[in-house]
């Protein structure tokens, strides 16, 4: 198959990523239903436990499947993946829902006031809007545990900064373009930040090092300084003070 033929194949299609990975592409746009199918496919593939499949990376609209060619060849795996996709059951998988406490504004929410000005609303309105939406973790990438969240209300869409800031702390609640984020590790970023969560999205010393995974649903809840302080103390003790709802 030549490269040009590849582009004209309809979705779903399977693309080689060298000699130890396949990309199962379901679409070329960001869409909640597409992402739900990506996550469902990952679940179905896990359940099938195909020998030679070693890792999977669910992203917005495709699933990267890593394999050991000494155990299963890419050509054979492609056929099995397409068969699996044809099954009706690969539609949606049970998701988890979590509420993330946020201390809006302050030092970590460096852009809150300016952003509110820009949008012609008060900071309190902006907080209310941000914390009223339902978000979906489309994928984890960029840095350990970094969650790309879809579902940001249109009014809050904001371009990234032309010059990234050198250091944004872990836990910072961000807005980049049409996406929302929770910073998992400290580092440079061109996103705008409106608050912080005491939760740690990534802590290698925890039994569950990563808080979120692709397909999770997230809501934000504003907390006051006193509650943030209590939560900080709990997190410092290694606790993860959140409640999961499954469904």
């Amino acid at each position, binding site marked *: 198959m030549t490269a040009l033929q590849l582009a004209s194949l309809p979705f779903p299609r399977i693309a080689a990523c*060298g000699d*130890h990975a396949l990309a199962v592409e379901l679409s070329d746009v960001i869409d909640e239903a597409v992402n739900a199918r990506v996550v469902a496919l990952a679940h179905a593939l896990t359940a099938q436990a195909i020998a030679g499949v070693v*890792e999977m990376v669910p992203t917005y609209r495709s699933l990267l499947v890593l394999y050991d060619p000494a155990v299963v060849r890419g050509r054979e795996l492609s056929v099995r993946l397409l068969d699996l996709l044809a099954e009706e059951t690969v539609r949606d998988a049970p998701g988890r829902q979590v509420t993330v406490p946020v201390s809006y504004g302050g030092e970590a929410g460096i852009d809150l006031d300016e952003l509110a000005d820009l949008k012609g609303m008060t900071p309190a309105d902006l907080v209310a809007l941000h914390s009223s939406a339902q978000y979906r973790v489309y994928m984890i990438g960029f840095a350990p545990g970094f969650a790309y969240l879809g579902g940001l209300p249109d009014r809050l869409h904001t371009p990234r900064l032309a010059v990234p800031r050198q250091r944004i702390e872990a836990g910072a609640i961000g807005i980049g373009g049409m996406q929302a984020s929770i910073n998992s590790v400290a580092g440079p970023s061109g996103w705008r930040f409106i608050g912080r969560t005491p939760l740690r999205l990534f802590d290698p010393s925890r039994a569950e090092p990563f808080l979120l995974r692709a397909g999770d649903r997230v809501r934000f809840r504003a907390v006051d300084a006193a509650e943030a302080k209590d939560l900080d103390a709990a997190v410092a003790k290694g606790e993860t003070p959140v409640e999961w709802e499954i469904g």
Partner: protein
Amino acid sequence: MNSLHILEAGPMLTVQDLGRPGYLRFGVSGAGPMDRSSMRLANHLVGNEDTQAALEFASVGGAFTVETDVRFAVCGGSVAITIDGTPRHGWESHRLYPGETLRIGAMRGAVWGYLAISGGIDTPCVLGSRSTHLRSGLGGLNGRRLAAGDQLPLGVSRAGPLLALRHAVPRSPGAIRVVPGPQAGHFDARTWAEFLEGPFRVTPDRDRMAQLLEGPQIRAFAGHDIVSDGTVSGSIQIPSSGRPIVLMAERQTTGGYPKIATVASFDLPRLAQIPSGSLIRFRVISQDHAEDLAIARSRHDAQLLADLDLKPEEPTISRQSQS
């Protein structure tokens, strides 16, 4: 407990084991060695298991001492190795005694070198691996490059013979083989012809995360932004500059640039070892062919590791050991 003392450190000296699989979906790439075969060989030459950690260096090694007797081996490329000034060969094991200083100089004709010490580097495991992931600050010694003055814990070194490689490992010359990538169709026939004609210069803009290439500008007719998807080691991304970026051991796990091709895993360590300034060309092979090469590589490596030669003991060097 035995320790390795670092008296001098090259610019990119890190602790590595075979890597940290299983966390790609959480945004953590595998890290591990840039040239896996060379690191495995160094470990086997000193009687270590595959899974034990060694040191990886780029360009220049450093100076090292130990507190109790060990065996060591340096693999990866041609490099000046001395114990208290007396030259020693690469690709075979030697003994290092307390009071002696091991020096590893500059690599010639290669980039990444490996120093394995019997017992292995015994820094803590993070997410199941000792590999340093510099970008994420994970593993190794506090997730960072090593520096003069650092001390690394060593595992228990079992007694064992000195070993040598039976034959030198030739690095096959010729084009770097690639499999058309997931966005291969974002590049038209003329661009593909230019990509395969090259040549590309291996620039000094390279680290454990990525290798930048310079050559004909590669244009994606469909634009240089895609909805981010997963990456692998060897993914060749084409950003809007038109200059290819080959992703390496510490890559970002997802990316938003179109990926024209993926370097065959057989040839990726070879690309990693090509000195900056060299010219390379790409050649397309099928996924099937690349898989055959990958399988052949692991068989060849297994054969090499099973075929190490016993080596006669060497006269000791230091006054301390001679007394």
